[in-house]
């Protein structure tokens, strides 16, 4: 995979259980589905993925995906 051409976008974040979300992404034109779980530790709320959404060599940054998941999560959590 050519790192400089790698692109990704979050298409959809859908709740599947409490704190767990199905995330649909398009990575280099390919549809990809991962499960994101919102967790909190050290006073910080973040996300774990299963599987990790990107090939590490692609250089794609997971932080925008985390932000998308947390936005949905916080929107649903009073």
């Amino acid at each position, binding site marked *: 995979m050519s*790192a400089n051409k790698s692109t990704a976008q979050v298409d959809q974040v859908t709740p599947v259980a409490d704190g767990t979300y199905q995330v649909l992404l398009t990575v280099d034109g390919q549809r990809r589905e991962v499960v994101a779980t919102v967790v909190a*530790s050290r006073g910080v709320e973040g996300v774990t993925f299963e599987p990790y959404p990107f090939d*590490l060599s692609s*250089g794609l940054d997971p932080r925008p995906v*985390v*932000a998308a998941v947390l936005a949905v999560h916080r929107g649903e959590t009073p």
Partner: protein
Amino acid sequence: MANFLGADTAVLGGQVTAACGKAATRADQIAASLRSIADNKCPVFGPNGETLATQLRELADGLSSGLQRLAAFKATAQRNATEQDKASGIQSAGGGQSGPMETGTDDGGWGNSVWDEVIGFLNMVGGGAEVVAGVGLLEFYGVGAIPIVHGLDTMYAGYRSWSEPNDEIYETYTGKFIREQAIEAGYTPNEAAWISTGAELAIGLGSGLAAKWAKGIKLATTAGSAADEAGESIARVAGAGGGSIDDMARGADDVARAAAEESGPWMRGVKGVEYGGEVVAQSRELSCTSAAGEMLTGGAVKEAQILSVIGEDQPVTRLIGVLNDMSGGPNYAGQFFDNGAQALEAARGGPMAAQLQVPFTKAHTVFIEPLSDGRFLVRDPGTTAGAVYKVGEAWIKQYVAGGVWRAE
């Protein structure tokens, strides 16, 4: 036996042949990279980008056409190396100074002088690396104009040295400007020349590091490697000589060595890096996460053990499952963050394995500990012997995308 700057001609011939063969391969890759940049990247810059695209395409074409001449030179050098009886065809310029290397053989239209063309070619390679790195930096960080301008300048000077049928090694406009300013400031022409050379090396050093910083960009990696190898090649070829080429070659070699001692762009500008010491250096190219896992456990679990379970090239959060399994309970936690403030908060909470992320650069995992002075100690498994350095809060906020730590 005749010699060139004191070097054994047969050995020198072999070195030149090897260097040129490698340079030809890299030049071909760079030419392809330049075309790719021109086609895919430059349009985002608007009209100026289109101008740059045109220039890049022309430079790529120049590189391609030059490859045939390089192949001819390689063949000539090979003949000189293998036919030692004809070694007198390579004559010293004398006086321990750089000068044209006369082949005296049928070189397929190469011409009598080669040094101007070899150096011109290497300038094009080095300039190409700067341009590629600069384009990447400009696109993603809004900086990089200096590498682009200096890179194009270097490439153009190199192209003139390469292509014009004389023995001149053309000076870059950057170098000429600096030299003229130095003379106006009262330096002698000789001193001004060295000031100019030093300034260009400094610019090149910055660009070399920029290329490493952008190494996740495949194009930049290709060009950066070519620049590194070119530097090493110059050093080998000129290793037995004296004078300015030797000094410049050492400078290029230093650039290559400095770049090799970085695990990634996050080390750019970090002062006081200690290589080796109390750090677990990763045993494989992509086992940084496992090495950081060993440091996180204080050595209780070894890199090899983790690696045998998760394999190479894994995100930092893979440590959670494997370390919990090995420690017999939910003793480790972690996550990816959505912003720098979260990363900083987690890093302040204690030691953690941290995944570093720079856009379009391959991710890397290190081990971080908070210090009493508000800074953080980074134990980086990614260089040859591992590295230890201190960073501030801004570094954490910029680079740390995720982490794993002992559960509370």
